[in-house]
């Protein structure tokens, strides 16, 4: 009984934290972008504009939820749910602190990779079901981009797995007691971050929704809360990639003085700010540049990382 209540509490807590953080990110991103562009951003609703999120939510629920008559209805409705569901499922394997994880899978990392691949379906199906040329182009780009960046996203993590000797995320964190993996796996970290940005299709890799070319890309036809789901899904993705980077490369909950949970959230917060800084700084590359960069630069680098890490491990053991 006690165990059941505890795991229920953890499940609800993780769900609540993930949703709150990703909703709060909408506000945080606008404030931080404004800060770096010497503006204020939303600062009218509530203290520091914090209630802006609430106002936006009320507004988005009051909007007409329109399904175009030419759309493929069931797919059109399911697509935005997939992105949120896969992102939330991925949160299940992340260890927030010792003992605080929804589930401890011995294939945790593989589970995350599988879920992020599933997330690609959301964008592709949305683009396809909308029956709109811009949406379809966005979906096509998303398919190509996410599939090719998936490849070395997985490969970049193999170095970490080799060092830790496990796919279990908790054991990976425990393996970082001596030294965080961001030092020996610096290359892996850089590749994973690039792939993570591409995977969440955030700027500068937001080609699937490139406003200046494709109206709004795959979600051109979406309105109301369905659009809101894509929006929240994107921020969930950012939180997820940040949390995972912390777990894999920055020692998860490890840290002196402060309690483990605080360390985890602090590190995640810094990484999220880094995501937003990327958006504030970098322009979008052309699509062929993006693909060439992925296949010709990142993939060989990821392979090189595996070879070198494996070689060193073999030599030292």
């Amino acid at each position, binding site marked *: 009984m006690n165990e059941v209540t505890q795991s229920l509490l953890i499940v609800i807590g993780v769900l609540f934290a993930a949703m709150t953080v990703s909703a709060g990110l909408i506000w945080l991103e606008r404030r931080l972008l*404004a*800060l*770096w*562009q*010497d*503006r*204020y951003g939303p600062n009218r609703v509530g203290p520091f504009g914090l209630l802006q999120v609430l106002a936006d939510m009320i507004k988005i629920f009051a909007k007409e939820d329109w399904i175009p008559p030419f759309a493929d209805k069931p797919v059109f409705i399911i697509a935005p749910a997939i992105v949120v569901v896969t992102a939330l499922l991925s949160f299940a394997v992340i260890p927030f602190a010792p003992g605080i994880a929804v589930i401890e899978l011995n294939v945790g990392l593989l589970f995350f990779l599988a879920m992020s691949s599933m997330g690609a379906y959301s964008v592709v199906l949305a683009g396809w079901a909308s029956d709109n040329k811009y949406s379809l182009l966005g979906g096509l780009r998303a398919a190509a981009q996410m599939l090719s960046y998936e490849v070395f996203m997985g490969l970049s993590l193999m170095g970490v797995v080799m060092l830790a000797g496990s796919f279990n995320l908790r054991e990976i964190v425990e393996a970082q007691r001596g030294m965080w993996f961001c030092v020996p796996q610096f290359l892996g970290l850089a590749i994973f971050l690039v792939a993570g940005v591409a995977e969440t299709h955030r700027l500068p890799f937001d080609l699937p929704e490139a406003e200046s070319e494709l109206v709004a890309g795959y979600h051109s036809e979406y309105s109301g809360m369905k659009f809101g789901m894509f929006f929240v899904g994107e921020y969930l993705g950012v939180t997820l990639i940040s949390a995972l980077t912390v777990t894999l490369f920055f020692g998860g909950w490890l840290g002196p003085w402060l309690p483990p949970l605080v360390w985890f959230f602090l590190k995640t917060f810094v990484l999220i700010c880094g995501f937003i*800084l*990327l958006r*504030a*700084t*970098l322009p979008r590359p052309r699509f062929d540049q993006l693909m060439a960069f992925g296949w010709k630069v990142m993939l060989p680098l990821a392979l090189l990382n595996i070879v070198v890490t494996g070689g060193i491990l073999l030599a030292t053991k």
Partner: protein
Amino acid sequence: MISILRSLWQVLLHTFQPRATIQYPDEKPYLPPRWRGRIVLTRDPDGGERCVACYLCSVACPVDCIALQATEDESGRRYPEFFRINFSRCIFCGFCEEACPTYAIQLTPDFEMSEYRRQNLVYEKEDLMINGPGKYPGYNFYRVAGLAIGGKDKGEAENEEPPVDVRSLMP
């Protein structure tokens, strides 16, 4: 690669820069005295209307937002019977001010003139008239011009010579 890191750093440095936004309703921006805002009709220093209803402003107006009707009082001074500016059309170009021969119509540094009803943006003469000379203190058109009106005949204006009697041969 280095350039990307460099630009990331430079954007990050903007954290410590002052913000350019003026938080408008709380903080008002500085408007220079020659700002082209709400249009007013001014009076001369004696309190009389400066406008002589010459229609030049109405003609100069590119969007035809000024309407007026000239009339004359018993002393021969022309003035507008009504003077109407439709501010929902006005583009604040200032051509009326440039066209005005008597400094009557002037643009002021004020732009806060929103209304809930469009009709309220049509300003009548009593809305436009102010109790002062505006940007040109001390200027009185009838005291400078050589026009004869009640209480001031030809040759009695400032710096004006008495009129020449063309029928006389005397210098």
